[in-house]
């Protein structure tokens, strides 16, 4: 970490991230920790990291955290929230974790209107296991398990998680953002804050899908991967508010 970075929020431990340079996880961790700190919920926040590159998130967040088996973050978060309704619970999940093995759990947590928050990191690959195809990998994208590029006949289409969940009445706040520019990062932080606020207000299921660079597995430089999000990824995954049916909100998905 460079010294010039802004002060560490109290909700982050004094540890150095193990993520690759340019990885979106570092930024998203920091944003989440800042929001938790700013909302003053550090003493009742409980986090559920995934199996994925962020598996060790409990080494970074200075709040209570419990591990979940691969994909089961939403079920574990449900258990915590139901047992302890006054807590503020979030799962932090990658696209393999949430949109492949954990699809049932996220859909049903959303459908129950589970009052939890999901930080969904979409980097279009399986990072931790070495760059295999994820459900969110784009058409034509080459990964270690789609060496010829993703072909919808062979491998199906990339899953748009926010749109998929948006038909469920229990999901009240769904927003897609990115972390590839200062402006985008600011918007992401705002969305994370909205999502937590949704939970604090007791309004139901909230999820922020964050388009996040994985330079290592995309085999791009940091700068090029930021550009790739703008040029390619966000063309398929529309950035912005996907759904907001919270009380008092007049904004609807556009």
């Amino acid at each position, binding site marked *: 970490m460079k010294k010039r970075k802004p002060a560490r929020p109290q909700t982050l431990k004094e540890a150095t991230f193990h993520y690759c340079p340019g990885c979106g996880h570092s930024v998203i961790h920091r944003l989440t920790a800042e929001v938790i700190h700013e909302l003053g919920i*550090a*003493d*009742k*926040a*409980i986090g*559920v990291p995934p199996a994925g590159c962020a*598996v*060790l998130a*409990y080494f970074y*967040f*200075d*709040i*209570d*955290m*419990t*591990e*979940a*088996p691969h994909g*089961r973050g939403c*079920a*574990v*978060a*449900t*258990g*915590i*929230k*139901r*047992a*302890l309704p006054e*807590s503020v619970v979030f799962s932090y999940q990658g696209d393999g974790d949430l949109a492949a093995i954990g699809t*049932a*759990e996220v*859909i*049903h947590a959303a459908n*129950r209107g589970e009052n939890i928050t999901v930080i969904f990191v979409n980097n279009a690959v399986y990072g931790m296991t070495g760059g295999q195809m994820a459900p969110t990998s784009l058409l034509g994208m080459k990964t270690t398990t789609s060496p010829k590029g993703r072909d919808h006949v062979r491998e199906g289409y990339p899953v748009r998680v926010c749109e998929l969940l948006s038909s469920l009445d229990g999901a009240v706040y769904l927003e897609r953002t990115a972390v590839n520019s200062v402006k985008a990062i600011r918007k992401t932080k705002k969305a994370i804050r909205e999502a937590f606020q949704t939970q604090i207000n007791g309004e139901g299921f909230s999820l922020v899908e964050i388009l996040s660079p994985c330079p290592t597995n995309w085999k791009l430089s940091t700068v090029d991967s930021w550009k790739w999000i703008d040029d390619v990824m966000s063309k398929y995954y529309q950035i912005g508010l996907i759904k907001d049916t919270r009380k008092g909100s007049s904004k609807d998905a556009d």
Partner: protein
Amino acid sequence: MKTEAKRLMRGSEAIGEAAIRSGCSCYFGYPITPQNELTEYMAKRMLETGRVFIQSESELAAINMVLGAAATGARVMTSSSSPGITLKQEGISFLASMELPCVIVNVMRGGPGLGNIAPSQSDYFQATRGGGHGDYRTIVLAPASVQELFDLTRDGFDLADEYRIPVIILADGMLGQMMEPLVLKDTPIAPEELPEKPWTLRGAKDRPSRFIRSLILDVNLEEEHNWRLYRKYQRIERREIRFEEYFTEGADMIVVAYGTAARIAKAAVKKCIEKNMRVGLIRPISLWPFPNEKILDLTKYAGHFMCFEMSMGQMVEDVRLAVQGKAEVSIYGRPGGVVPTPAELFRVISRTYNKILREKKA
């Protein structure tokens, strides 16, 4: 102590009521026969008592909801039958490693695969060998009556908390479905009355933050973690063995059976006693830890142990290990959901017993 009158109760519901009276505040389950009555009973009772009930989207989700709720310190239960328990194994392995207490009920049915919904004991290996991946154990209690379904479920919650371990109640379709008189001899405890646990995740208020995990990448630390679990398992093996003996003293032959099979075996052994045969019964109540020493001790009388199971040779392996070669061990099994009659078992015992006598004379 509040003693209530005898009442006729279904096995599944006795488990549910025991959970309620143990202060269980969260139940997560998914429908599967022959334990639906338990899920339904919990739906009704948990809502009546203002506690948490969720019918999850799968057994996988249910066990992971258990994990989350257990991490907050809540007393929590899930239940299923054989195929559903297979799906839960992922979570059980995590619960074991993360040392999260909970009660898991398996109302066993015939297998493998979907099998059938008749009573069976085919999940003995799965239950007593950990079940999921990794080097771990769970406490396994095997009730044989509706009263015991109740009593052992209550004890299960206490053991789970005491040792921070998942406890499995291993019942079967017959025990779950049948009704028998039940006396509630216990003092019910409400979730609010339970003692606080010092390790739970409830928000880092006025204390440093905590995390609970199973991933330990450093091999030395992971080894130490496993050693610690192992020492805990040893402690349990020393302290928590349960069994029932029936005419074992001086017996030439001992039948070993648990759960439903033990009920049949008891009636068959009783018939043996009436015919002046020196046959006894030992019924393991805790399947893990298994009553090894007791069985070894009984080899001072008995030269033959016959394991009777509603499966084809699972518990018999433990019996064989327990006798340490000091006695012969045989198996009589009926798999696939068949519950044999005491008369049938009596014939089998007699045959073996007479053979032993002949050999003794020769």
